[in-house]
């Protein structure tokens, strides 16, 4: 039996080099009431921006993680998202354009996933507007699969980024200052941890072949969101066990204990359908329930993906009243909507 990793590339594309711009054009065509695209800069902007007097949130990164980030632009979340090529950080020019476009006079928060490329490019962009626009930046680094940051580029920014964008976005929408919005983002990042696994690899369109090979009964544990190989390889196991592999390190790293309340986010990597994601959520819920940790809020679906990779990640965020209130606050973006 062969693997179920995709081997031949079969994608809904015209020319590979047009995938990102055409996908952005599709986002705009589908949601003209929410977003508009700065096509030359590959930046997704709030249709009604810049919002005067509001702190603006800018994020961005390589494409291939949709709906992150462009699908999270809109009321209560991001003001702009910069789209790089697939799995390649955007360049400082894009971030500069985004920062200038969204500035409403109250400052701009850059939400940056911790990857060398993203960090360096956002850093350069901040330098490009220094003295003109007040910019602060938060680097998300929630991936517990990366253990010793002494010997690595530091923990990667993964699932918690979605939660930071939502919650800091709500804080900004509620009139928070740049310092307050930044503090909220830092707080969410500090209170959240993630870990993921892959059942299949994925194909970077410009590469045309899978980034890694997995046997028919193999699982790659501790993956990031760029199709990178993970930390170790395991045999395929019942979803209860696989969920345990992800939940355990998170619970211990966060120091969660009986009586704690969390937001549980079961994220699809792109190719895993909802029927399975809800089965995984059921496993996570049973594991947490068994430890007396209650799930006060949840999110289930493909929100931060690796192209068509099959697999899932778990993110847990320790909640307090403020975070619950900000999570529940209205949001109206292509990919997350409620309360509006």
């Amino acid at each position, binding site marked *: 039996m062969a693997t179920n990793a995709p081997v031949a590339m079969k994608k809904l594309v015209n020319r590979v080099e047009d995938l990102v711009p055409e996908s952005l054009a599709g986002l705009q065509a589908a949601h003209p009431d929410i977003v508009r695209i700065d096509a030359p800069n590959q930046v997704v902007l709030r249709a009604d921006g810049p919002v005067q007097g509001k702190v603006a949130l800018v994020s961005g990164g390589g494409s291939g993680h949709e709906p992150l980030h462009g699908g999270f632009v809109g009321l209560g979340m991001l003001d702009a998202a910069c789209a790089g090529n697939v799995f390649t950080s955007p360049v400082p020019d894009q971030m500069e354009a985004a920062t200038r476009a969204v500035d409403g006079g109250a400052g701009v928060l850059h939400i940056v996933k911790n990857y060398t490329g993203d960090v360096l490019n956002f850093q350069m962009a901040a330098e490009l507007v220094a003295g003109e626009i007040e910019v602060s930046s938060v680097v998300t680094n929630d991936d517990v699969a990366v253990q010793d940051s002494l010997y690595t580029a530091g923990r990667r920014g993964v699932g918690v980024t979605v939660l930071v964008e939502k919650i800091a976005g709500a804080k900004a929408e509620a009139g928070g200052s740049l310092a307050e919005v930044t503090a909220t983002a830092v707080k969410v990042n500090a209170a959240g941890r993630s870990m993921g696994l892959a059942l299949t690899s994925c194909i970077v369109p410009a590469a045309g072949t899978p980034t890694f090979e997995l046997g028919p009964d193999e699982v790659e544990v501790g993956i990031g969101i*760029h199709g990178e190989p993970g930390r170790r390889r395991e045999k395929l196991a019942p979803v209860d066990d696989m969920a345990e592999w992800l939940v355990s390190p998170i619970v211990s790293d966060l120091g969660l204990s009986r009586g704690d309340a969390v937001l549980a986010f079961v994220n699809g990597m792109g190719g895993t359908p909802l029927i399975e994601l809800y089965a995984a959520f059921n496993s996570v819920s049973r594991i947490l329930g068994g430890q007396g940790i209650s799930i006060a809020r949840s999110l289930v679906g493909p929100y931060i993906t690796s192209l068509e990779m099959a697999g899932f990640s778990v993110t847990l965020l320790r909640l307090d009243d403020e975070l619950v209130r900000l999570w529940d606050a209205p949001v109206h973006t292509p990919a997350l909507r409620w309360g509006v």
Partner: protein
Amino acid sequence: MHDALVAWLRVAAGRLHAEAPALTALDQAIGDGDHGINMDRGFSAIVAKLDGQEVPAGSDPAADDTTATADLLRLAGKTLISTVGGAAGPLYGTAFLRAAGAVAGGQPSTAAAFVTGLEAAAAGIGALGKSTTGEKTMLDAIVPAAGAARAALEAGGDVARVIAAAADAAEAGALATVPMLATKGRASYLGERSIGHRDPGASSAAILLRVLADSTARP
């Protein structure tokens, strides 16, 4: 220097285009499979800039050449920063910008300009990337290259010899990344599993220096 640099950038772009699949394959093993694509995009953009520019055919006076060279290095650096993305964009871009700064000061010879520029590039990458040798990055090619070039220069080598020394050291350095454990960049996430693979950034650096050595060796 300016004209040789233009020639180098054009040949380098061609070579990186040809080597893109191989570099990407290296990045698939321990990264995210885009390094070849990224470098190809960046150097094509440099060539497009060169094509679009009214480059003064040959600016004779040494002072003019120094300025033109520094400007060209700066143009290359900015173009890389604006088009490559990923980790390599800011790192290579900064390398060229730092080299421009070093060259702009004026150097006694082309060979000295090359060595100083390469040293500045290495220092710039290390500062931006918070990295040093032995971490399985492009620095493992560039730092030894700068060291070998400095040694060749001090031993009285001409520009061809100095650049050849740099290229040889870069290739050896790139090869030496194979047994290393990555502690910087994406490969570091693999931990022990990063061992046994050549670093893509070190490999592209070695390619760039080999192309330069080849073109300088020619009369």
